[in-house]
């Protein structure tokens, strides 16, 4: 028992250390998503430690000691035990589902009216960013990845689509991606909290130069954002 407790504690500690390595403060949404990661990584590590521990325990403790053994034991069912290992996992996944459902509702909900709006169009093999309220457009190539500029502390609505095949707009530091599908406009929002430059990539395989379909997201202060829009707008 004490051994089992030790194994579980170690597993949970490892999981929490892993959680700490996952970024979580780049956006408001990433904070919530990170909470789900912590729960699942910890639960996963504990379940792994318990089940793998049982397998290895049985493998060592019940190794054959007498080569002549043909039948070691004959028990082959135990209804209460079998019910227990059916019902307890149902409760565990029900709990995990509750965590999932709560976080997903928050992350998928869209603030109206949005503070800012940006249209993102994926194409083979780069991205186009349009700020419709400011007449600003940024377009990259696979050699010159474009930069998406977002204001910190404000919610920006993203309207995502594609002009050819399916792509996916993934910013790993935001713990989030969404597919860019031709004929469909996917709407979600970002609320960046921390200024900085975050790399991003196309995650949905889209043909020959999929690997080069990268971009960066630069989160700046609202003042710097307004200045950038003015300069960009004037240049256009």
């Amino acid at each position, binding site marked *: 028992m004490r051994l089992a407790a030790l194994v579980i504690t170690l597993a949970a500690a490892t999981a929490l250390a892993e959680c700490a*390595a996952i970024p979580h403060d780049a956006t408001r949404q990433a904070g919530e*998503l990170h909470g*789900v990661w912590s729960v*699942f990584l910890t639960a*996963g590590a504990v379940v*792994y430690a318990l*089940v*793998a521990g049982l*397998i290895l325990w*049985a*493998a060592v403790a*019940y*190794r*054959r000691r007498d080569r002549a*053994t*043909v*039948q*070691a*034991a*004959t*028990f*082959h*069912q*135990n209804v209460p035990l*079998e019910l227990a290992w059916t019902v307890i*996992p*149902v409760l565990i*996944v029900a709990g*995990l*589902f509750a965590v*999932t*459902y709560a976080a*997903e509702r928050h*992350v998928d909900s869209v603030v109206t009216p949005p503070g800012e709006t940006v249209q993102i169009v994926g194409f083979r093999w780069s991205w186009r960013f349009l700020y419709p309220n400011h007449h600003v457009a940024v377009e990259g190539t696979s050699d010159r990845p474009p930069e998406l500029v977002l204001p910190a502390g404000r919610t920006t609505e993203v309207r995502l689509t594609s002009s050819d*095949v*399916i792509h*996916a707009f*993934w910013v*790993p530091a935001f*713990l989030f*991606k*969404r*597919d860019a*599908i*031709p*004929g*469909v406009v*996917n*709407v*979600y929002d970002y609320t960046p909290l921390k200024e900085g430059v975050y*790399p991003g*990539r*196309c*995650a949905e*395989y889209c*043909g*020959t*130069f*999929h*690997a080069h379909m990268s971009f960066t997201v630069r989160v700046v202060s609202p003042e710097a954002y307004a200045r950038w829009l003015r300069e960009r707008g004037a240049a256009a």
Partner: protein
Amino acid sequence: MSAVAAPPRALAKEGLVAWLVTTDHKKIGILYMLTSLTFFLIAGFLADVMRLQLAAPQQTIVGPHEYNQVFTLHGTAMIFLFVAPFGFGLANYLIPLQIGAPEMAFPRLNAYSFWLFLLGGLTVFAGLISQGGAAASGWTAFAPLSDVRVSSGVGQDLWIIGLTLTSISGIMTAINFLVTPIVFRAPGMSMWRLPIFTWEMIATALLVLMAFPPLATAFAMLLLDRHAGARFFDPGGGGDPVLYQHVFWFFGHPEVYVMILPFFGVITEVVAVFSRKPVFGYTGLVLSAFGIAGLSMGVWAHHMFTTGAVANPFFSALSFLIAVPTGIKFFNWIATMWRGAISYETPMLFAIGFMLNFLIGGITGVMVASPPLDYHVEDSYFLVAHFHYTLGGGSMFAIFAALYFWFPKIWGVKLGERLGRVHFTLMFVGFNLAFFPMFLLGIMGMPRRVYTYPAQAGWGALNLASSAGVALITLATAVLVWNVIVSMRKRFPLADDPWGSASSLEWATSCPPPEFNFRAIPPIRSKRPAFDLHYPEYAKDSPK
């Protein structure tokens, strides 16, 4: 007792012709397994090419055009031409033996489905010598990437046609797997005495019958879009690219269980034999197979969480629930080992390896079934790691367990134990070294299906570790091939049950079994007729 007379010798054909015209379920099973293992070696070589290219950032061993064909063919071959068909081959060999039958219900249909499968596989690979090369839109061939305006080559058409042939072949095989155990059981072999492997194949056959027709449908629609202007998936013509994903994954997720249920059966048999105990929780194991099969029909859109086009909570909840029947299997295996007398011949080593690896695949499967987590890791290397832990660390390990376990039955030769242990050790270490780093790479932001990555991304060390792991897997596979060659030259007579404590009927006939399987079928009075026959003093303990 019923006995089957051997046919007159003059009718039996010899040599190559015998294999070409055979309708014998054992020969067809062997052909299936040999063919699928050949595709495994080819797909493994393709994996070597990928891992060589990705071992360091910005390499140019292959270019994007080649790499994209390589990963497409790797996935296609492993899924459609190796894992599922190996299960079919094993079941072809074992089902009649396990139920005490002389043959499959429809032997000619069985032969036809093997040759159709082979033709389908060759058609897919024929793309390599076509203009523009083989298909390069991934094993999923999402529209509109697979549309003729984007993927104009003949390779994509050959891929679609080849896989349609294999799916038709699978449907016919499933009919045999379903009908044979229902109508061809020997006297005394009630349904509740069927070995777990046969039960798992019945569940698999039901899944194939429900899931493969939609696959053929998806491919027919693709082909019509490509060449008849149908525009099912073209948003410019009122079509919808997401529709393809619905139809494809309606096949694709049950397919995942077509590739694992047979091997849950293998592990159940192996664990019981080497623990020297009856299978624990027989009823639970049977019910959980059907539970998994049933749930797997309702989870397809968990592959589509990031499309923004599906009811994520519904598909997430059903996907989570699959963990429950899968957990039941794990607990039953552990309970079968409990208070056993476990010996570690190679099949049992691979069974333990299977459990430890598949456990990681299952737990990370619950993670990717949670949309908030999937938003980050969908289409990343985390996902690649997850499904390799189920299909590689899971199914492939069980295939090796099956290979060592039934090799003496099929060929009358035991594979070498010393080389078997070397094979297992290299494979277990190599597998985990190759695929565990991919979880971290995915969390760090590496997308799947990229032929290169920039040095400044910081993914070099983990990728190098992964490539080293694949080198070990390659070495392990060479050891297996060497073991087969060496062992085949050292023949000595084997008992009907060379493992010494086997239960199911295939161990109550010679190694290899005669034509039509049994000279005489032993009385079947429990769930372990072969054990009762060999150890009448313990027969009273056998679960009825």
